[in-house]
């Protein structure tokens, strides 16, 4: 029977051989070729040829249509179709196979004796619009958030303490750059946070508007001294500002872990996880990023490095048994005499011996009448003068806990980059009124600028979205200055601009 010949082709399944559309050799085993056999043979050959051309098993489809007993939907059946496609090849196995007998029964019939799972070809169900459903996507994201929160509560820090961040700042060109960086890092911290911003020169709207965007709990305090122009003085003033913040913590009896985030530093998220491990007073390793400006400095440094390879890291040093043995400090000798003195110097800016940002302390150390305070902490109010680093607060520096795998992990980086002393910047970085400096373009009109639409300029001038429009404004302005002479058509626009400029 020709049907079984087709069935034999399945035997090749696992051997990965390329399956031809039908074993034509099976015809050799029939001895007597009756007209019916010849007819089937020819028909089969025809089906094979068609399959070769069309690329699928056409003969199977034909037999299916002739012999199947159920209604069918094959391939991409619509979503609501209930009939499953069942296709059987071997005719006599249709009768012997139990599950096939259930074709007439509805598919959801779960009788004990008959399986509702049928062997054979099934349709591939595709819904009418197979694309993400935004409602489901949002629900899935909420589930992901819940799962991650649970993970954090199980495997992360148990009983996380509030992080109290102390940042000294002052208004200058680079303040927006630095403070935005710190702000975004703090916004990502998964713990409760209090941000104490101490500003030299008093509280200003500039800083206030910047930190208001964070949505964090902030305490914005002014310090009545302007920031001096030399690095030495600036460091001293910043120390004073930080002490002021510590006094606020003491007054308000804030409870948590105090860390010092200078506004130009870069913090990693692991830092905030690691400082939760501090008991009283801890230290982390700080990467010191100094940028060298001159090339001959590099040559000098190379010589030094061969003798004594340096790491730009400041932080606790441990001995073999993971106990604090000393301190790594940044080697400033190569820069002696060549370092920056004034804030806008182009020379390398050097850090202090030990930066404030490398230390964290438990806020209870600062409280006035805390009974479980250790003996080695000095009272802030009893300090004579100012301290250069938080180590000045402790009587015995060996009690400092080294964090970050005993100082082996660098969790934050120290950097000092400032603009020139005479640099100006638009207040709150909004350009209003228009800038005084305009650079006329070399050629007008710009050769590759798109043709200016007159209607566009007027709103561009009046509104306060500064940055993108600025360039077009400049070109159009300069274009129009020259165009004025040539094209009388632009008179109307010119006149309006005149009124706005005045």
């Amino acid at each position: 029977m020709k049907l079984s010949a087709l069935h034999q082709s399945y035997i090749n399944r696992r051997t990965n051989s390329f399956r031809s559309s039908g074993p034509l050799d099976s015809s050799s085993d029939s001895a007597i070729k009756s007209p019916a056999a010849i007819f089937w043979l020819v028909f089969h050959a025809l089906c094979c040829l068609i399959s070769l051309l069309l690329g699928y098993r056409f003969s199977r489809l034909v037999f299916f249509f002739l012999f199947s007993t159920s209604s069918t939907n094959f391939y991409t059946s619509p979503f609501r179709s209930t009939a499953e496609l069942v296709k059987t090849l071997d005719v006599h196995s249709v009768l012997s196979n139990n599950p096939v007998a259930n074709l007439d029964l509805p598919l959801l019939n779960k009788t004990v004796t008959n399986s509702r799972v049928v062997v054979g070809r099934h349709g591939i169900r595709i819904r009418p619009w197979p694309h993400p459903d935004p409602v489901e996507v949002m629900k899935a994201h909420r589930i992901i958030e819940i799962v991650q929160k649970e993970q954090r509560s199980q495997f992360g820090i148990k009983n996380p303490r509030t992080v109290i961040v102390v940042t000294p700042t002052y208004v200058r060109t680079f303040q927006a750059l630095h403070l935005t960086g710190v702000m975004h890092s703090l916004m990502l911290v998964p713990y409760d946070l209090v941000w104490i911003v101490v500003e030299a020169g008093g509280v200003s709207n500039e800083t206030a508007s910047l930190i208001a965007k964070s949505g964090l709990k902030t305490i914005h305090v002014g310090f009545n001294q302007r920031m001096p122009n030399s690095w030495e003085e600036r460091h001293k003033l910043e120390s004073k500002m930080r002490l002021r913040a510590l006094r606020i913590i003491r007054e308000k009896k804030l409870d948590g872990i105090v860390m010092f985030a200078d506004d130009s530093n870069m913090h990693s998220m692991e830092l905030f996880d690691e400082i939760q491990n501090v008991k009283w007073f801890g230290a982390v390793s700080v990467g010191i990023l100094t940028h060298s400006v001159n090339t001959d400095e590099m040559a000098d440094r190379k010589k030094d490095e061969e003798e004594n390879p340096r790491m730009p890291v400041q932080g606790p040093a441990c001995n073999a048994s993971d106990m604090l043995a000393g301190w790594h400090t940044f080697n400033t000798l190569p820069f002696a005499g060549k370092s920056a003195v004034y804030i806008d110097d182009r020379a390398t800016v050097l850090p202090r011996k030990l930066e404030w940002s490398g230390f964290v302390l438990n806020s209870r150390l600062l409280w006035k009448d805390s009974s479980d305070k250790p003996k080695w902490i000095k009272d802030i109010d009893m300090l004579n003068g100012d301290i250069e680093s938080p180590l000045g607060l402790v009587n015995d520096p060996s009690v400092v806990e080294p964090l970050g795998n005993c100082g082996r992990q660098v969790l934050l980086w120290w950097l000092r980059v400032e603009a020139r002393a005479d640099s100006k910047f638009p207040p709150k970085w909004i350009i209003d009124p228009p800038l005084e400096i305009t650079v006329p373009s070399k050629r007008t009109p710009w050769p590759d600028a798109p043709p200016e639409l007159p209607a566009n300029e007027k709103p561009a001038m009046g509104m306060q979205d500064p940055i993108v429009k600025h360039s077009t404004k400049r070109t159009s302005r300069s274009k129009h200055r020259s165009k004025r002479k040539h094209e009388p058509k632009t008179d109307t626009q010119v006149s309006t601009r005149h009124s706005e400029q005045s």
Partner: protein
Amino acid sequence: MRKCLWLWGLLFFALGFAWSITAERNPCTERISGSAGDVLEDDPVGRLKVYVYELPSKYNKKILQKDPRCLSHMFAAEIFMHRFLLSSPVQTLNPEGADWFYTPIYATCDLTPTGLPLPFKSPRMVRSAIQLISSSWPYWNRTEGADHFFVVPHDFGAYFHYQEEKAIERGILPILRRATLVQTFGQRNHVCLNEGSITIPPYAPPQKMRARQIPPDTPRSIFVYFRGLFCDVNNDPEGGYYARGARAAVWENFKSNPLFDISTEHPTTYYEDMQRAIFCLCPLGWAPWSPRLVEAIVFGCIPVIIADDTVLPFADAIPWEEIGVFVAEEDVPKLDKILTSIPSHVILRKQRLLANPSMKRAMLFPQPTLPGDAFHQILNGLARKLPHPKSVYLKPGEKILNWTAGPITDLKPW
């Protein structure tokens, strides 16, 4: 009076202390209490005795020597079961006192160059082994194999064929009809699943999985994960046959959905990715079982089982409904809706159940053996079937099995 109060106070304090200690120990896992209690932790030692037949090495060791790949593919359970029994205290050297008899035949070790087993000679091998044991020992004829068990981890169990239709046609090997089959295949109301068979998970290499663990606080950011074939182009080019069209449906419906990280690629970070996923799809392939289930359990990813009427491993001991998500094949187009509509407390509970180490151990075949692992679960399953009913023992001269049934090719000697 005061002394009484003191005593009561002390008692309460002690109780509270003890409760807090036990609560602290496992804060993030939940104990699986199945229908039979904490069945996963039952110890089979002392509850049953197994006698291992000494077969000539042509049935086991020689085959393994010819192809050592058998030790690492997903059918390796048969080999490791033999080794486990030889070194386990449940083994008895006195066959008279044994409850169960085990025949060590490595039937799925004839591999193609690409590593797929060819099961064509297996029926003959099993026949010849049984002929040997029935002639050398009296225990087979006593019960016609009803107190014997065989490990047959191949696709459709004791059918020894990878094609479902062929397998259904042939039926279980006639001489194994009375024996207990320990197999990976499980589907309800299917001819291939004998009543009383024990379903086991496929073998997954425990060392490899343990070596690829990532820190547990890595946030799970993939919603649904799947890696594998959607269409078997070699064997089923038009589709619709492989996986009953379910895998192709998954692909067609969700290939453009960013929540579904599904593809046919074979990444080197497969195990690590599973640990970063919340749901792992375990759809059927040519057979309804797959090692993905084991991998999902070990890595804490909730398995989404898309295989109608499937019977999962150790189903009488493990409450799969509470651990995994079952999706009917016809509901695949709605898979995203089904998964997002699971309430979050249910999802967290499933994750806690998955984190239970006894759950993970029950799915693995570790070497050396550990308490509560899959070997012990198999023995527990066998122990639960004891004592054998009286009907198992045949009267002398009674014969139930038909030794000459089956296709003629199977009756040839091996």
